[in-house]
């Protein structure tokens, strides 16, 4: 019987390594499809990079947002190359932001950026806020304002 306990323990040991779940590939069409995946939820699409220090500093805020506004959906999209996914996963996992994470999966990156927003030159962090109806409310470069977050995240 002890063997089965040992197997169970081993499974628990292995499981966390996979808990920082795999990223979904962000490709042409991904941004437009996001609101329809979970309709009626306010949506924030947060673009970041492993090479962007302010993006990583800001992650405490996004973890707090997910916690405070459970009705809203916060999607983290890494604008790095697919080969950087392991490091991106580790960064998100360390900051409690695993899950609902994506990574740019088609080159060139500027094509994906253009589809999201033709005026976006790639500055990070960059977040796109949509309301429950999937309408774009606001685009923020840098840290979003708490009052706006409250209005967006917990709509009446």
């Amino acid at each position, binding site marked *: 019987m002890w063997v089965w306990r040992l197997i169970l323990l081993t499974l628990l040991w292995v499981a966390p390594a996979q808990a920082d779940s795999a990223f979904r590939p962000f490709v042409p069409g991904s941004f437009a499809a996001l609101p329809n995946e979970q309709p009626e939820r306010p949506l924030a699409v947060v673009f970041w990079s492993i090479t962007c*220090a*302010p993006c990583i500093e*800001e992650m405490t805020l996004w973890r707090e947002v997910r916690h405070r506004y459970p009705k809203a959906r916060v999607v983290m999209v890494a604008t790095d190359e697919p*080969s950087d996914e392991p*490091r991106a996963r580790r960064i998100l996992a360390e900051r409690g932001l695993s899950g609902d994470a994506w990574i740019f999966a088609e080159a060139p990156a500027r094509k994906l950026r253009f589809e999201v927003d033709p005026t976006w030159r790639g500055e990070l962090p960059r977040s796109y806020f949509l309301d429950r109806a999937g309408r774009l409310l606001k685009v923020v470069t840098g840290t979003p304002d708490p009052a706006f977050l409250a209005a967006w995240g917990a709509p009446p």
Partner: protein
Amino acid sequence: MNRKALPILVGLLLAAPAAAQHGGHGPAAPKIDPACLENPTPRCALVATPVVDGRVLWLAWTEGQRVYVSRSADRGRNFERTARVTPTALPVDANGENRPKLAATADGTLIVSYTLKTAKPFAGTVWVARSTDGGRSFETPRRIGDEAVPTSQRFDVLGVSPSGKVHLAWIDKRDGQAAAQAKTRYRGAALYTATSDDQGQTFAPPRKLADHSCECCRLGLGFDTDLPVIVWRHVFEPNRRDHALMRLAEPDRPAPLREVSRDDWMIDACPHHGPALTVAAPGVYHLAWYTGGVARQGLFYARSEDGGRSFAAPMGFGANRRQAAHPAVLALGPRVALAWTEFDGAVTTLRLLRSADGGRTWSEPLTLATTAEAADHVLLIGDGARGWASWQTRAEGYRLIDLPDD
């Protein structure tokens, strides 16, 4: 013991460390085209930095984490010689915003500077290498500055003044790191410089030029008579990332910092989008930059005719809805050129604006070239009489494009 359980258990025990390893540390090395390793040519490059020296074009470029310098006698159509600068594969910063730099001195010495990424994130060290045999080989690269000083150096920029003094400037994080140690706040990073009077053989100790530069944008460097003029994205209080210019009165001592334009871009973010500068004549500077500020958004041009004390009202250019980005600027006397790229979702276009009257009036924009795949930033270079747009693209390779005369 249950016989069936044992193989499962062994399998799990073997799998567990492998699963943990998959978490990975550090980015994977980029894929290298084997043909490029064996026979490196600029065709393999993603970014390239040109220098025109008479009829010769020199190109510094990277591939497979190595820095190379190639020589062309026909303005980039063919490269007959390539020398390796870095002895081994190293994590060289080689993206549009930070790339190896190249300069030539009057006696034919070639100097290359580049940033190596270090294990610590967002950190780097600046290295310099030289060739005294006409670019056939490069001496062992040397690190700039004192290794004992904990810091990070990135976004190096390199130039040779008319009198032959070599100037190196970069973004340095030692002041920010010291503040973090002392638990005080420090905005951004700092601008440092080091000079050489012996064609890059030795450099004087680094000196600080300015506090509070943006951490992650390329620098613009030019020479007014024999002294450097530097333009950079600054972090004004509290977090306003607008542009500043410094015209040095001495080779490596700070001078007053001038604000180029009050764009009011208040952000805690990485634009990765630095300015460009060209010096047309003593005291006459032409600048181009990108901003997402409250006052204005997009690409802008301005000139100063009094050594940076004042700037003309900024002129917007480029199509914002086509990602107009990374402007370059070049002056040949009263003729000024602005170049940048635009993107329509499929094709990247190299665009050009020209002025014949020192930047007061401008032509209609025209398209110089296009590409359907990945593209570097455009750079503009000149030899005093003629100008060229330098553009590295994945599909077409390297192109040095004549700027049209009117």
